[in-house]
Structure formats: structure tokens, C-alpha cells
């Protein structure tokens, strides 16, 4: 299964690198215009690391991703995504993957982000894409949906969450310096989070 996980992270890296300019533009409007630059610097390094190493365990691979992001991204996104993946590395199953695993992964990521950033939903951050996505997984579990369908629902929820950041006023991160002026712009971190969730879902379901 590590091969599959590796493929997913290689794909995530490509998507982030492709969206460097887009993410940077979003960050220019309400931040300091470096989110795409920071993220693609980090995921370039992730690609490099993953291509030149073999991993026996999923946990080792994800931990490598986390440590690489922590040591190359910088800014706010580096510690947030880094800690998220570090937490994920502790719960990712080595063998089969089911909706319970998906929920546990999502929750551990959220815990990591909240531990570092102390934000809640609604503050115009990456959490506004991630938290609805994980909530949707829990609902799908209650409804006994197929994993495939649950993941599609999860992706949709992430996208809606990302879009819901547009009217929000930021109260965390650099965008909060703008006060009211932060309204009307989509949050760059919520956007990169959506792109990551979307890629994971598409890779698993393809």
C-alpha cells in the first residue's frame, strides 16, 4: 500500500506546484502574496524526497512528508500542514483503509492544525475547508454510504467550505490585519486544503 500513498503525495505535489500562481494571487489580495511560493517550494522538496527513497511503512512516508513541509514551507502554512501530516502519520493504517480510518485521519489533521493555530471554524482559514469535509465523512458513516461515495461527498463539502470563506471576515492569520477589507476574497489556505482533499479523493476513487 505504500506505493499507493506515495502516488497520492506525488500527485498532490504536482497539483500544488501547478497552482503556485493561483494560490499566490489569492494571498496577495488578503495576505502577503507568498502562499503559492511557500507551498510549491515545500512540495517540490516532497517530490524529491519521495522519489529518492523507499518506504516500508505508510507512517514513515507520511512522517517524511510532514517533516519536509515543516522544514521547507515556512510562514503559517508550513507548521500547520506539517503538524497536520505529522498527526496523520500516527494514525494512518498500514493495511486496509475504510471510512473509520478516513475519519480518524481527518480528525487527527484537524487536531494538529488547531493545536498549532488555535483557530475555530469560521475564521477564514484552511479549517473552513477541512472541517466540513471531515464532518461530511462522519455523516456518510451514519448513512452507511459506500467509501467511494463518502469520499465524493467529502470532496464536495471541502469545495463548499472553501467557497464559504469568500464572504467571511478573517480573524486569524495575516488577513485579519485587514479587518472588514478581508471580506470578498477566497482564503488561500482553504484553497490549498481543498486542492489536497480533492486530489486524495480523485486518486483513491480513480
Amino acid at each position, binding site marked *: 500500500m505504500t506505493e499507493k500513498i506515495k502516488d497520492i503525495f506525488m500527485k498532490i505535489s504536482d497539483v500544488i506546484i501547478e497552482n503556485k500562481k493561483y494560490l*499566490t494571487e489569492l494571498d*496577495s489580495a488578503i*495576505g*502577503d*502574496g*507568498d502562499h503559492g*511560493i*511557500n507551498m510549491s*517550494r515545500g512540495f517540490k522538496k516532497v517530490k524529491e524526497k519521495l522519489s529518492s527513497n523507499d518506504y516500508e511503512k505508510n507512517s514513515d512516508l507520511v512522517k517524511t512528508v510532514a517533516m519536509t513541509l*515543516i*522544514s*521547507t*514551507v*515556512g*510562514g*503559517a*502554512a*508550513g*507548521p*500547520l500542514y*506539517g*503538524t497536520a501530516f505529522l498527526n496523520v502519520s500516527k494514525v494512518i493504517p498500514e493495511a486496509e483503509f475504510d471510512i473509520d480510518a478516513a475519519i480518524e485521519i481527518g480528525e487527527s489533521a484537524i487536531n494538529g492544525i488547531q493545536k*498549532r*493555530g488555535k483557530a475555530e471554524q469560521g475564521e477564514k482559514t484552511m479549517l473552513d475547508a477541512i472541517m466540513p469535509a471531515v464532518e461530511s465523512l462522519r455523516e456518510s458513516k451514519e448513512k452507511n454510504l459506500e467509501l467511494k461515495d463518502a469520499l465524493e461527498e467529502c470532496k464536495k463539502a471541502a469545495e463548499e467550505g472553501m467557497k464559504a470563506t469568500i464572504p467571511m*471576515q478573517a*480573524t*486569524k*492569520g*495575516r488577513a*485579519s*490585519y*485587514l*479587518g472588514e477589507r478581508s471580506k470578498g476574497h477566497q482564503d488561500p489556505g482553504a484553497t490549498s486544503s481543498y486542492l489536497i482533499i480533492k486530489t486524495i479523493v480523485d486518486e483513491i476513487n480513480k
Partner: protein
Amino acid sequence: MKKKLVNNPDHVVVEMVEGIVMERPEKIEKLDDFNVVVRKDAPLEKVALVSGGGSGHEPSHAGYVGEGMLDAAVAGDVFTSPTPDAVFEAIKAVDGGQGVLLIVKNYTGDIMNFEMAADMAEAEGIEVDHVVVNDDVAVEDSLYTTGRRGVAGTVFVHKIAGAKAAAGGKLSEVKSAAEKVIANVRTKGMALYPCRVPSADESTFKLEEDEMELGIGIHGEPGTERTKVKKADEVVDDLLGSVLSDISFKNGDEVALMVNGMGGTPLMELYIANRRAHQILEDKGIKVYKNFVGEFMTSLEMAGMSITLLKLDKELKELLDAPTDINLMK
């Protein structure tokens, strides 16, 4: 796209750090593989001070590494906070067993990265504490922001905490001295022209030829208010007015006054501003104990300035006057 004297935009930080170390090779050195400047004689038997942040604020912070100020400075990418591993390396390089104080400017990224480094250091048994500088009165400190930014006032924290550490203060004492500065220092800045990050094509904001921006930060981010260009004296009235109304001053108080250029401002303009600042303070019966005019915390080539007041007491005066290697803060 504004012209720049650089080689490759991706290498500006490492080349700059190398150039900084070459200026004072007998005093400071660069850590291999990291953009970290440390005192050559570190670790010393005293509390060690580590600061840093995104690059583009030179001489902050590497320019303050030396006797009586910082033991190490960590340089992130331009306007991007450094990563925890770099901060961790800095901590390890300067820790002399008496503990390490991290001086962090109040940005979400900086705080998280320095905190992670502190966690890593503590895991290795190093005693680490940190202070957060938030002197920018332009940003409202409320529930709805991440609080005030750390700007030029940070340099006073370096100086005073550095003096306390050099005098043999314990980690808790050095931290208290730093926090006393933080409680008593306020800054506000403005810009006539923005700056361009070397790896970006354009500057982060634009100003018309008759506009200026008040309440600016040090990352090329837009300020809080855009107005028509005013006279130097009126600009100083605004900046110093905001600073003075944020902290209570009374007749007879003594202050350190810093008139800080943002990188592209000629000294002539800073001195014209300095003159006005003195006039205002004299009117209010506030005595300028020490005056710093020049570039201390810049924003690449941004044209503009910030004004910082640090309210002094006997202890702060002594620490401000304490000897240091760093010519800028003598």
C-alpha cells in the same frame, strides 16, 4: 517590475547572509546548510538570545548578532518566517546551558515556527522560553485580529534583553526585561512607495503619485489608511500622535526615540522627521533620553518610515546604555 541588484531571486537570502558574515568574520559565522548567523564565541555561559524572521528587514536581525545583543539570528525567505529546523539549529548552536530566550515578532507564522523549534529543543533538554513583540499601534489589538504586529520596537527588545543576559541575568530575568520593553514600546509606520519581493514580478500594493499609506507593516502589506501625500511634519504628527495616545505619558517621562527608515528613504527625510518628533515631545514635556535615526527594521526598498517610542525607567536606561558590539545601537 522594479530593478534590483541581485543574482538569482531564489538565492538572495543565502548570498546576503554570506555577505553579512564576511563583514565581521572575527565576530560572527554562518551555520552550514542554514541561513543562521551566530556569534563566533557562542555558546557562552549566559542566557542565549535567538531572534529571526523573514528576510528583507535588514539590518534585522543578523545585524544585531554580537556582544550585548543577540547570540543568533535566523533568516527565513524574504518576508516568510523561517522553519523550525533552522531555529532549532540556532538554539543548539548558542545554548550554553543557561537557557535560551526566543524573541519573536507577532505573526502567526513566526510564532508557530518558533514554538515548534522550542518544542524540539525542549525535547533535547534545552531550556527555552520566548517573548512576542507586538509594538505596531496601527493594528487593533482585539479579539478579531491576531493582535498587533511586531515591527521596529523589536530592536529595543534585542538591545535590552541582550544587555540583561550579558550582565548575567537568569532566563526568567532576561525574559522579564524583554517583556518590560514590550509593555513600553509602540511604533507606527507609513510608506510613500511600496517594495517588490525579489521573486515576485510586482510590488504587493500600488500607490498613486499623490498618495501615501499610513499604518503600514514591514512586509509590503497594505496599511490601514490611504491619504494624499502630506508634509513631513504632518506625517510625523500622525505617527507620533497615534503612538502617544496608545500609552500614557506624563510630563517628565523619558523615552528612547527611533526614527526608522524603511529602506528607500534618504537620511535627509528621516532627520527632517526627527526634528518634528523632538518638537512634539518637547511640547509635551517628554525628554528624549536617547535618539536613533537610521535604518533598523526595513522592508526591502520601501520608501517611508516608522516612529518608535520606548518609555524608559532607570533599569531600561541602564540596559539601553550597556556596552554592545553593535555600532547601530551604541
